């Protein structure tokens, strides 16, 4: 997406940021059940795989030569995305978090995320296409701490708590996957 974001009103921008800050706080506070209420039952939750592709000689000199999109094996590709999930998957993840035998999170990881660069890119009827970036600090007992970095490409629809997430694509910044899991709620 190379275009400038939509001209928003300060109120609309504020509403989006308010929503994302609330969401981030719920996730860092491990209030996943409440987080799930921000998600629409027909959500597509996606995380493309990121690969090293050949440079296409014919693209030389153009921005498309090194575009991020070329590196992504997403839902439309015949590669293998890291995650292609529905509400059911997210529900299983949330339920798992509250079982004493979900061993990789016992004791649970300590996380802190900063969400920013919130840009409203398009609006179709009610649905808002919104980009945001995040950095997440992750400390799991017994492991070295690490940082998650990525971009979220959301489709939001207005709802009681501000918005409801009806689609989220998380583009992670990784070469090899050096974090303990990409199965977090991001």
């Amino acid at each position: 997406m190379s275009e400038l974001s939509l001209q928003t009103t300060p109120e609309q921008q504020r509403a989006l940021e308010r929503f994302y800050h609330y969401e981030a706080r719920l996730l860092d506070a491990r209030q996943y059940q409440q987080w799930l209420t921000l998600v629409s039952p027909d959500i597509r939750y996606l995380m493309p795989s990121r690969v090293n592709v050949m440079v296409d000689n014919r693209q030389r000199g153009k921005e498309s030569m090194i575009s991020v999109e070329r590196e992504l094996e997403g839902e439309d590709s015949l590669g293998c995305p890291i995650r292609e999930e529905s509400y059911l998957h997210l529900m299983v993840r949330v339920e798992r978090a509250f079982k004493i035998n979900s061993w990789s999170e016992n004791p649970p990881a300590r996380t802190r995320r900063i969400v920013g660069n919130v840009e409203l890119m398009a609006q179709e009827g009610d649905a808002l296409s919104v980009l945001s970036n995040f950095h997440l600090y992750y400390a799991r007992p017994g492991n070295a701490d690490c940082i998650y970095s990525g971009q979220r490409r959301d489709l939001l629809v207005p709802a009681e708590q501000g918005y409801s997430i009806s689609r989220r694509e998380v583009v992670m910044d990784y070469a090899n996957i050096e974090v303990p899991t990409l199965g977090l709620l991001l």
Partner: protein
Amino acid sequence: MTLRISDLVNAEASLVSRRCWSDPDVYALEKRGIFGRSWLFLGHESQISNPGDFVQAYMAETPIILSRGTDARIYANVNSCTHRGLPVCRADHGNTKRFICPYHNWSYSVEGDLVAIPQEGALCNKPDKAQLGLKRVSRVESWRGLVFGCFDEQIEPLESYLGDMRFYLDAFLDRFAGGIEFLGAPHRWVINANWKLPVENQLGDVNHGAFLHSAIIPREAQDLIEELGLSVVPRPGHGATFRLMPEDSPVDDMAWGMEGLGGMFGGDEVQEYLREIQAQAASRVGDIRARMKGLTYGIYPNLSFLWSNTSFKVSHPRGPGKVEYWSWAVVPADAPDHIKKILRTNYSSFFGPGGILEQEDSEVWIQQFQGSNIDYADDRPYYYGLGLGEEKVHPELPGLVSVTANEFYARHFYARWRDELQAVEDT
């Protein structure tokens, strides 16, 4: 004090020293005695179907380019320039005529031959390019589309190396008239663990399911697995676990792919597609193999195949305490694209770096490596004796067969591992 391999694994391989996992000297021996002398998985022919196609691979820590030559044959070369050693290929996969080294632009054909030295025009002495190609992997063979390479010229043919493991692999591979396809680039997950534990986990450790994964796998589901489950060692080092379904089982209980989230919730068309494959199974692979519903498979030393969540995995060592764990989703090659896209989630929902289940496995592999570094407990080797001597021959299934709680698959693995290291420890 010098370390002797015979001190690490006892005669029946029921006791295995912590040092097998953590000692740098053991790892150095493994590189020579195992990774230098075994057939190692490089890729699948579906990844390089056209001349000029290539994918990257590894043989332990050695980077390899696996390619399809202009003569349609398969080549495997070390990805390192003969001039100063840089990798000449940087992409995970692609199609090319030449691999060009960035440093001084020596260029190599897709078969690995050196074709141009830009500097030579200015010089009188022309190097003999025929001697300066990329280093070939000594042996490359494929079976059912699975391509393996070996550094040792003397190794037995791949087919005899696989031995009766072929019987079990075919129960899956031969189910599909058009063969299988590996989707996309592998997920490359770096885990601070020793390479052998992911291997052992997929070789036959079905029983941890009820415990480690109890947050996700209900006890009743695990009971069903263990009730019908068999563990087989067709040849020491290889292993297969599966459920042998009763003859009157409903097709939906038997069919491959139905038990993954994609199969369960992917819609009628996918389920019909899976039933159709199962309907052909007996005529393709015979009655007993049509009733096999696989769980985990292992091919010595570091290739795994997870039938239930259809994925191939390779545990590439990066020293004693680190692995680069590669995994691919695998689908029938002739499935329509939209069905492939649903079936790949049978893998990714639960396994791989984003999977709901495997995050528990990777965590314990890391913790096991930490435990293996406790030198105060060196006199407390790990106990591998569960089910000692209880495996038997079976009237219809080749190899030794037992219940899944029997750890004989691991004993056979470590006995072979021990013998192969002993063969090189004094050389």
